[in-house]
C-alpha cells in the first residue's frame, strides 16, 4: 500500500490562535482513517487547510507530490481530493440532480464526459437521491442532505474523500446507513479521511485513528485499540475532578 496522504508538522493559525499545532498524520491508499476528538479540537480547521481553503505551515504531500501554498482548491480537487464539509454547502435552490452534476465540474473541465455513468453509480449508492432528483436541495431532510453532499463529492471520482463530521445532526439510524456506505466506497478504491465527534461510530468502520485535542494529536493507534482505550472517554469528558477542587466546592456550601 502506498502512502496517499502525508502530513508533517502542520500548524494552522487562525488570527492569533494556533488552531492546529505541529500535527503529524498519514493515510495509506485504501484505508479509512478517523480523526476523533471533542469539539473545538481543530478538526474542521485541519480539513479546510488540507483542501486548500486555509493557509497552513508545514509539509503536506499527496500521492508522493508536495502540496504547496499556491495549489488552490480547484487544483487539489483536480488531483483527486474531495471534501464534504461540516456545513454541507449545497446549492439549495438547485435540484438534487444539478447539485450532483456540478460535482463532476472539475472532471468536465479536464475533458471527461462520462458523467451520466458516474451519476447512475451515485444513484445506485443512494436510491433516495434518485427519487428526489428533481427536487430543490433545500427541501431535503438532514440525512438526505448528507447523502447528497457525499454523492456530489463522489461525482468527481476522488481518490481521497475527506468528510467533516458526517454524523452531525443525524439520527443514530441514519448514521449507521451512511457509515456503511463508507465501507462500500473503500472497496471501490476510495480512501477516506473521516473527522468525527462521534467516536464510536467512526472507530467502528476505520482502520486507524487519531485523537485530536486542542489542536494536537494526543493519542493514535489502530481503531480497535482506540475503541477499547478508556483514555478516549477522559479526553471527551475531562478527567474526574481532583480532590482539591471537590473540597473547594463543598466549602462554599453549594
Amino acid at each position, binding site marked *: 500500500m502506498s502512502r496517499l496522504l502525508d502530513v508533517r508538522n502542520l500548524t494552522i493559525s487562525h488570527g492569533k490562535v494556533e488552531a492546529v499545532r505541529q500535527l503529524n498524520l498519514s493515510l495509506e491508499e485504501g484505508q479509512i482513517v478517523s480523526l476523533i476528538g471533542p469539539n473545538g479540537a481543530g478538526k474542521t480547521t485541519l480539513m479546510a487547510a488540507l483542501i486548500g481553503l486555509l493557509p497552513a505551515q508545514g509539509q503536506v504531500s499527496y500521492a508522493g507530490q508536495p502540496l504547496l501554498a499556491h495549489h488552490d482548491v*480547484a487544483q487539489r480537487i483536480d488531483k483527486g481530493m*474531495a471534501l464534504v464539509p461540516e456545513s454541507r*454547502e449545497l*446549492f439549495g435552490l438547485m435540484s438534487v440532480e444539478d447539485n450532483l452534476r456540478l460535482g463532476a465540474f472539475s472532471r468536465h473541465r479536464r475533458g471527461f464526459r462520462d458523467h451520466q455513468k458516474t451519476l447512475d453509480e451515485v444513484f445506485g449508492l443512494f436510491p433516495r437521491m434518485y427519487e428526489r432528483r428533481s427536487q430543490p436541495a433545500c427541501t431535503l431532510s438532514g440525512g438526505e442532505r448528507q447523502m447528497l453532499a457525499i454523492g456530489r463529492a463522489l461525482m468527481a471520482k476522488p481518490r481521497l474523500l475527506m468528510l467533516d463530521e458526517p454524523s452531525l445532526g443525524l439520527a443514530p439510524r441514519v448514521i449507521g446507513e451512511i457509515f456503511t456506505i463508507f465501507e462500500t466506497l473503500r472497496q471501490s478504491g476510495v480512501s477516506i479521511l473521516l473527522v468525527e465527534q462521534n467516536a464510536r461510530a467512526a472507530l467502528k468502520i476505520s482502520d486507524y485513528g487519531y485523537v485530536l485535542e486542542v489542536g494536537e494529536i494526543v493519542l493514535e493507534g489502530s481503531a480497535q485499540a482506540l475503541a477499547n482505550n478508556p483514555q478516549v472517554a477522559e479526553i471527551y469528558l475531562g478527567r474526574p475532578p481532583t480532590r482539591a477542587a471537590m473540597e473547594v466546592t463543598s466549602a462554599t456550601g453549594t
Partner: protein
Amino acid sequence: MDISILAFLAQDGLTTGAIYALVALALVLVFSVTRTILVCQGDFVTYSALTLATLQLGLMPGTLWLLLGCSLAACTLDSIAALRRGQSRRVPGLLARYLGLPTVLWVVLDTFELAGLPAVLQILLTLALVTPLGPLLYRLVYQRVAETSVLLLLIVSVAVHITLVGISLLMFGAEGVRTDALAEAVFMLGELPVGLQSLLVIASALLLIGLLYAFFGHSLYGKALRATALNRKGAQLVGIPTQLAGKAAFGLAALIGAISGVLIGPLTTLYYDSGFLISLKGFVAAIFGGLASYPIAAASAFFVGVLESFANFGASAYKEVIVFTLVIPVLLWLSLKHPHLEEQH
C-alpha cells in the same frame, strides 16, 4: 392623447425597457456571482454604440487601444505572478491568451476599409472589442478586492465608472452619436406605425434573455455560474475556481452591454457619459427584483421604460424624482425580508 400617440409611447417605452431589462439582467448576474454592483454596465452600452459609430465613420476606434492596454496590464500581472511561483513555462500561454485577440483585431482594423465593411462584420468587431473588457476589468480591478464587503466593491465600481467615462471622453469626444439603423422599415399595424428597428430591439432582447435562461439552466458552465452565485464555498469545493466565475460573469455582462449598445445605437443619441443614467435605470429595475430575481428585474425594467416614455411626454420634470423615490419603499421591503445582511469579514 389618441391611440397613435399611445402606441408610439408604448413602443418607445418597451424598446428602452428592453435595453433596461438587459442592463438589469447583467447587474443581477454580476451581483449574485461576485457581490459587485456593476455601476459601469451602462458604460459597456455606450462604449459599444460609440465604437460602432466610429467604425461606421471609417475611423479606428479608441476602444482598441483601451483593450490592448488592459490586456497588456493583465498579462504582465499574471506573468509576474507565474514567474514568482517559478512557473515561467506558463508565460507564453498567457501572452497568447491575453494578446492574441487584440493583436488580430488590430491587424483587421488596420487593414480593411472600415466604413465599407458589411454591417454584420462591423457589429462583430464591436462586440469583439468591448466584450473582453469585462473579464479584463475583473482581473485588473476586482480580483484583488474580491473578498471585501459589498460596500467597498460598490465604491470601487463607482471609481471604475468614473475612469471609464473619462477614457470615453478622451477616445470619442463630447459629441453624441447615432449608429446607422440596422433596419429602416416602418410598417403599419392597422393605423399604428411600428418601427422594425424597435421590433428588432425587443425581439433581440427577448432572444438574449431566452439564451441566457437556457445557458444557466442547461449547460454545466451556466449551472456552475449559478452555483457560485448561490454558494461560493460550495462552488469552490466542487472545483469551480472563483476567479473563473468572476471573469465569466463580467464577460457575460460586457457581452450583454455590447449587444445592448448595438441595438439601441440607431434609436437614441448616446454620449460619452450616457452610461450612468442607463445603469441607473437598469439598476432601479434590478433593485425591484431584489438584486436576485431575473424575471422581476426584467419585468420592472419594461415598466421603468414605459413609465419614462409616458412621463417624458407629459413633460413631467418630476419623473426622475418619482422613479428614484420609488426605490426607497422597495428597499425597505427588501430589507424587511432579509434583515440580517451581515457582511462577511
